[in-house]
Each structure stands twice: as structure tokens, then as C-alpha cells.
């Protein structure tokens, strides 16, 4: 195969595979910087194991990506142990993960008080700053900080309870 053709095939595979992989990773890490880093790292680690014109499958790339995320998160831990909610974010694509299902998360959020739902929507979903959120909610910035903390703690508990309920059911 000519060098030119080889590069064309490579470019085509690259263009077809990276957007799906990036979205898969983003869904779990929820920020562009980390999603780009992990995507790049996934290709860099996977490619040396394959010989052209053979390319890794999408499932293979995703498994490597999950392992990279798991390792990165573990390295930042004081105790090096993954917590349950993190694991729920890192299940493989074919396994059902409710935490990655926005409809389910939205339903669980409805169990929070109205104020707690509002603060999470403004700060996290809409992406407003603490000052902007404080203004919209007619509260001090300190109050917003306290409210969002209680909201996340409650939500974490609810997510875990619901996950356990699903496991037992």
C-alpha cells in the first residue's frame, strides 16, 4: 500500500473514531480539558499495540479510556479507593448506569427542596458564577455556597439510595 493511501486510511479512521470516543469520555469526566487529555492518552496507549492496517475497535478504545480515567482519579485520592458514585460513572457502555442517564438524574433531583434544585440548576446546569447565582436567588454569596453544599450532599445521598434500590430490585 502506498504511503499516501495509508495516510488517507488513517485520517479516515481517525475522523470516524475520535468524536465518538471524546463524547464517551466527556460524559464521564464532564469537562473538556480532561476529556481531551484522556482521548489523546487513549490513542497514544492503544495504537502501539496494533499494526497498520489493523485498527482497534471502538469498544477496545472505550475500555482503555475507562481504565485511564479510573487510574487518574485514583491517583488523586488520599486513600486511593474509588467511591461508589465514581464507580457508577465508570461502568462500561453496555452496562446500565443510571448516573449517566440525565432523565434519571433529573428525576432524583426533584426530590430536593425547590431552593436546592434551583441552586444546582443555576450553578451547575446553567453554569452561572456564585455571584450571579446569589443575585438571581436574592441571597448572599455565602448563603449560596452553603446551600449548594447541602444540595450536593443531599443529592449524593439520594443518588446512592436510588442506586442501591435499583441493585436490590
Amino acid at each position, binding site marked *: 500500500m502506498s504511503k499516501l493511501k495509508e495516510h488517507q486510511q488513517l485520517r479516515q479512521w481517525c475522523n470516524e473514531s475520535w468524536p465518538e470516543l471524546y463524547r464517551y469520555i466527556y460524559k464521564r469526566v464532564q469537562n*473538556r480539558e480532561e476529556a481531551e487529555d484522556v482521548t489523546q492518552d487513549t490513542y497514544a496507549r492503544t495504537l502501539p499495540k496494533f499494526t497498520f492496517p489493523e485498527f482497534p475497535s471502538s469498544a477496545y478504545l472505550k475500555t482503555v479510556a475507562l481504565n485511564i480515567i479510573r487510574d487518574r482519579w485514583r491517583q488523586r485520592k488520599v486513600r486511593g479507593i474509588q467511591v461508589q458514585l*465514581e464507580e457508577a460513572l465508570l461502568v462500561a457502555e453496555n452496562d446500565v448506569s443510571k448516573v449517566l442517564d440525565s432523565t434519571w438524574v433529573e428525576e432524583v433531583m426533584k426530590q430536593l427542596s425547590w431552593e436546592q434544585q434551583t441552586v444546582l440548576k443555576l450553578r451547575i446546569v446553567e453554569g452561572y458564577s456564585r455571584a450571579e447565582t446569589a443575585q438571581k436567588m436574592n441571597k448572599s454569596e455565602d448563603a449560596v*455556597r452553603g446551600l449548594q453544599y447541602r444540595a450536593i*450532599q443531599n443529592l*449524593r445521598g439520594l443518588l446512592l439510595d436510588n442506586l442501591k434500590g435499583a441493585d436490590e430490585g
Partner: protein
Amino acid sequence: MRQTPEQELDFMIDTLNKEQDPKMELHDNSAGMLAAVRAVRTLRKPAEPNSSFGQRIYKILKADSQRKRTPVRLAAIAAGVILVLALTFGKSFLNGDVVYAMEKAVLQLSSYQGTLEMSTENLAGEKWMVRKVEIWSEGEKYALRQTDGTLTVNNGEQKFQVRAKDQEIAILPLVPDYTKRGFDLHDEAEKAKQYSHTIVGQENIAGRETIKLKISPPGGEPYHLWIDAETDLPLQLQTAVQNALQTTYTFVSFEPNVQIDSQIFNLNVPEGFKVVEQDPGQLVNTISEASDISKFVPLVPQNSPLRIFVFKERIVLDYGDTTIIETPAQEPFKPAGYGAWGDVNGKPLEVIKERLRWQQQGLEIIVEGPQSLELARQIAPDLVLPDKDTEFSSQAKVKVSVDMEIVKADQKQVDGGHTPWQLDPLSVALTFVNLQVTPEGIVGEPEIPYSTFEIGNNNGVEAIINVAEGPISKVYLKRLVRQDESGIWSVIGYDPRL
């Protein structure tokens, strides 16, 4: 001070909102919070990667396919580069950030034995030894022997000083213990991590290979720290030149994680020695015993203390690395000018590093140590820390322009031990206001006395000073160079009295 869980969460949300990776150390609680925030973010539309991202991936793939064609040449070059870097930078290259490695090594240090020398050098290059101390440290226990033979020991149950010259043994209060902080390796590791640092070389210190770090506190003179290349522990510290003198602290011998003869920590009274007690306090088992002896009821957190000490009108709850001291409040609460202000039930809370002080239910409470916030919140659930993001200066009716070059020079002066009044916002406001009244200079007692100045608010970064008389009613100050207790205050605005 470590961030509060509320601040940690705020940081996570802001970082993810900026589409950045929250690179932070995570405890179980913070990891759970971060996962919950990520779950909520699934309700957002995912951010697209940067426009050139696809091109970047293609370059990686292309480079890999070329690498496969010429494996020997590139592998050889890569191996060569790694070898050169490893030989040049040793562990710092192979193990990542040397400061991170030091922090880990210090955390894993269970015991050590060593000799610390403190020497001073003047600008003429003359050097002399100030002190030499032998140190034995095991967990919370330690023993220090000075060159004159004085031995200070804290064995967890007693703290005492054997003064050979005077043939006496002084029994000292066990808590709070300030002696230990004089040689705390954790502090140095923490500072190195906090401030910007660069590797500036490799040197042999006391027969050991070390990596030399230059540490630059914001707005201050840089200083140097040498880290043992084998153990990753700090071996030598050299301060910046202050008052034409430079001090160097060197562990001329240092053995980490060694078995220490427990005899060194035991109190043995040699024949002919007398024992002197300096109110060492009384160890009791329960809070009610403490109350009976001290004649007041302390406020107690949910977490049980490891030990309870009672002194005359003072109860000390010992939590290992953190101490709570409670005394009956004698006078109205006055926070120190150099501390930041928080709030406990509408009353001021003084915050100085890991030390919180406030009055509650007729008691003055001091909580000091890494767990201070957690324990203080168990006593005062409504405790609010100073909000450093709040801006007071925008309220100033008259803005005062500041020459940053002069402010930086002033900060260096204060770092060197001169004009310490610049650390006190009240003194800075006093000087400013009086120079408005008597522009020719302050001679003798200032026209507007110190007693008329009062702190209105202080979040650690900005402060408002209320002035009861004179042409100015409020002065607005800010720590412009460094936003911690070592940062000087500058006037950035004022309100004229109407």
C-alpha cells in the same frame, strides 16, 4: 488552612464550569461530591472539543505509524534522552514533582533521629554556628537536646525539661505545645508546595546528594530548600538575607524511620535533681471532672477528645494535632488586627491560619490545628469563615492610588523584620489619617489617637477601619502583595466625614 468542604465544592463547580479538570487531592467526601457534580452536569449539553483537536489526534496517530517504520532509531534516541534527563535530574525527572515526593515522604515519616545545626552568615561572608540540637522524634513524642545539655521531652503523657546546669527538672504544660513547631518538617513541605518553586541544582550536603529548590513566596525574597535525593526529605533550609544576615538550618545527620530507644522519652530524676512544676495541668477522664475542678462548664464538640486537661480557670481538650482551649471570657472580645474576621452568631470570629478564636456563652474559645474548622463547627454550627471574595473597596468614596513598586519594597522591609506595624490594619489606617491631618509628619502623640480606630470588617484580604473622629470616617485597606498573615496592608480608599 485546608479548604472547607464548602470551598472545595465551590472550586469544583467553578473549575468544571470553565471546562477544566479539577486537579485536586480528594478525600472520600470530596470525591463523592465531585461525582455528584459530574452527574448533575449530565443535564448540560456536552462541550465540544477545541477546533484543532481532531488534527491533534491525527498527528499522534501519524507519528505512531511513522515510529513503527523506524523503531530502532527513535527508540535509541528516546532512550538516550531519558538517560541524560535521569542522570541530570535523577528522581525529580523520573518521579515527577520533587515537592510532591517530599510531601509524601514527610507524611510517611514515622520516626527520625538527627542533629540540626543553625548557622548564620553576614554580608562579609563571616559564618558562625548559632545552635546545634539533637532531635529524636517518634509519632507525637519527641526529645531535643541543646548543646548546653538541656533536654526537652514530650512523651505524650508529660512534657519536661532536664536542666543539667541547674540540676533541676521542670514539668511543663503538655498542651498546647509550641516547642515542636520549631523543627516541623511538615511546615516546610507545606510551604514549598504552596509557593512557586524551581529546581536550581544538585549539591552534596552533609555527605548526601540533594536537589536544591528555590522557593519564591509571593512578593517576598526567595529562599532555598535542599531535599535529600534518596529519602525525598528536606535536609537544609536557607532563609533569604534579612537584616544583612542569612540563616541556614542543616540536618548534619538524619536517619528517617529508625527504631528509637524509648528510654530517651522517659522521665528519670537523677540523684540530686529537684523537680519544679509550672502549672502542668491535671489530666482528667471526663468533662464533668474538668468542670468540677475548673468551676465552669466548657462547650464540647461531638468528637471526643483524646485527652482532657484542667488548669486554673482553663480546660484544654487535646485532639492530637488540634487543641481546644476554653476559659471564662474576662473582657469584651477584640480580634487581632492581623487576623481575618469571620462570624459566629453575629459576633466576630478571629481567624489566623489554622487558629480560630471567638466568644460564646460567656466563654472564650480557641481552636488551633488542622482540624480546627471541623471541631469549631461542632461547637458553633453557624460559624462562617471570612469570605475573601467580598470586595469592600468598591464602597470607598475616595480612591487612593497605590504605587506597587513602593508597596513591594515595603513588603520586603517587613519580611526583613522592619516596620512590623504595616501588618496591623489599625496602625496603617492611623498613619494614613494622621498624615492627612498633619501632612508635615507625625511628631509625638498622633492628633487622632489609636483608640478612635476600630476594625469594621476584615476578610483577610480587604479591611474597613472606622474612625470615630477627624476628617475621615472610614479607611479601606487591602493586602496587595500577599494575602496571608505575613502580608502588609495598604490604604486604597477612604470616606471623608460629612
